[in-house]
């Protein structure tokens, strides 16, 4: 331990005591895209005791520009991101205990994974999921670190249940993803800048140096050269439905019915049935429709101008359309 973490232990705010704490902590990273990859690598190198990784997607070529844990081989084999991330992280530091889950984040899927989690890092790509996390982690009293980025901009904020204003307090209206990832793209330094803030806050929490936490919300634009902080103490609302006196946790309604959503910037629709799927059976059924690719985690095929990817957990991605209706039509044509 001494050699491996020596430079980090020389850093006074961490020291040997801090390193021992880091080695015994458990961090959940929600999302293994750009933010998730980089945070996970930082924490694995720092020697965090245990990482839980959650992601619903698999690696694609357009991810490689900024999602640092993945390789062309992962793209070729269509490896789910959580699985590919775990493999790479263990190459970096096999002392870290890593649980990887290929699943969609819902209250039902997340609650069983929250046992002994010390902190959660937000590496999701939409506010629906963040507001659900905001409720969930307030309810279970787990600190978390919000982060988001697009173009050359990004933001981060650290949320301590019962202490700081929650994410909902800051956002009067839930922002829609809208113009962001579709049109604006992203450069990797914007990812790294958000991650620098998130991992640093995570380290402070892991070594229990609460006084050093940043209490404001950071916004930056690396291309246009600004860095702005906003003091948010005033934002805490007594009647907040998440962190107020009588919380109703409005984003935490636990039903899992069939749900469809357009994935931002991907020309892709996700359909979620909540029913487990036997991929081999499905492959047998669809083998005459189109050539099937199947591995342990997913089944994919080309159909007309679309590509469909079925996962065990009842999710299907339909690439090649932004229309939920069109996607449902195709889905039901094939899956029945």
């Amino acid at each position, binding site marked *: 331990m001494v050699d491996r973490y020596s430079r980090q232990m020389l850093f006074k705010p961490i020291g040997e005591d801090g390193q021992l704490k880091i080695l015994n902590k458990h961090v959940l990273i929600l999302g293994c895209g750009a933010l998730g990859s980089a945070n996970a690598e930082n924490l694995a190198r720092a020697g965090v005791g245990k990482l839980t990784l959650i992601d619903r997607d698999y690696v694609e070529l357009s991810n490689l520009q900024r999602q640092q844990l993945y390789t062309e081989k992962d793209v070729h084999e269509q490896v789910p991101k959580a699985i590919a991330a775990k493999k790479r992280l263990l190459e970096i530091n096999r002392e870290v205990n890593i649980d990887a889950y290929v699943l969609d984040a819902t209250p039902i899927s997340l609650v069983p994974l929250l046992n002994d989690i010390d902190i959660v890092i937000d590496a999701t790509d939409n506010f629906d999921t*963040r507001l659900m996390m905001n409720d969930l982690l307030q309810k279970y009293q787990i600190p978390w670190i919000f982060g988001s980025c*697009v173009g050359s901009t990004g933001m981060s904020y650290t949320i301590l249940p019962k202490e700081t204003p929650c994410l909902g307090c800051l*956002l009067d*209206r839930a922002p829609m993803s809208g113009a962001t*990832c579709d049109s604006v793209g992203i450069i990797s330094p914007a990812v790294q800048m958000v991650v620098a803030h998130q991992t640093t806050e995570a380290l402070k929490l892991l070594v229990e140096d609460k006084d050093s936490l940043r209490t404001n919300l950071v916004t930056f634009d690396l291309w246009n050269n*600004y860095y702005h902080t*906003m*003091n948010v103490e*005033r934002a805490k609302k007594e009647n907040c439905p998440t962190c107020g006196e009588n919380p109703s946790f409005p984003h935490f309604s636990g039903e899992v019915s069939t749900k469809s959503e357009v994935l*931002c910037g991907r020309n892709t629709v996700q359909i979620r049935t909540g029913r487990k799927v036997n991929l081999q059976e499905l492959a047998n059924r669809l083998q005459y429709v189109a050539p099937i690719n199947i591995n342990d985690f997913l089944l994919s095929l080309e159909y007309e101008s679309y590509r469909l990817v079925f996962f065990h957990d009842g999710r299907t991605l339909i690439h090649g359309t932004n229309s939920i209706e069109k996607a449902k039509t195709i889905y039901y044509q094939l899956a029945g």
Partner: protein
Amino acid sequence: MIKILLFADLQEKVGKPELELKLEQITVEELKSELQKIYPLINLESVMTAVNEEYAMADDAIKSGDTVAFIPPVSGG
């Protein structure tokens, strides 16, 4: 004079990172609707507002000399 900092896509839509408006006093909400009139392309509905680097609410007053920042939440990750 009130100084206004525009971030992310607001900056793009307005075409510059900063504005100055000759105003003595105005609330956050009023300022938003003023700007919306001048720049119909921008959407200030879900932006966060900071006045002198402090979170501000819709009916907070902004005075001459203050710096207002409009911060659109970005969602990618």
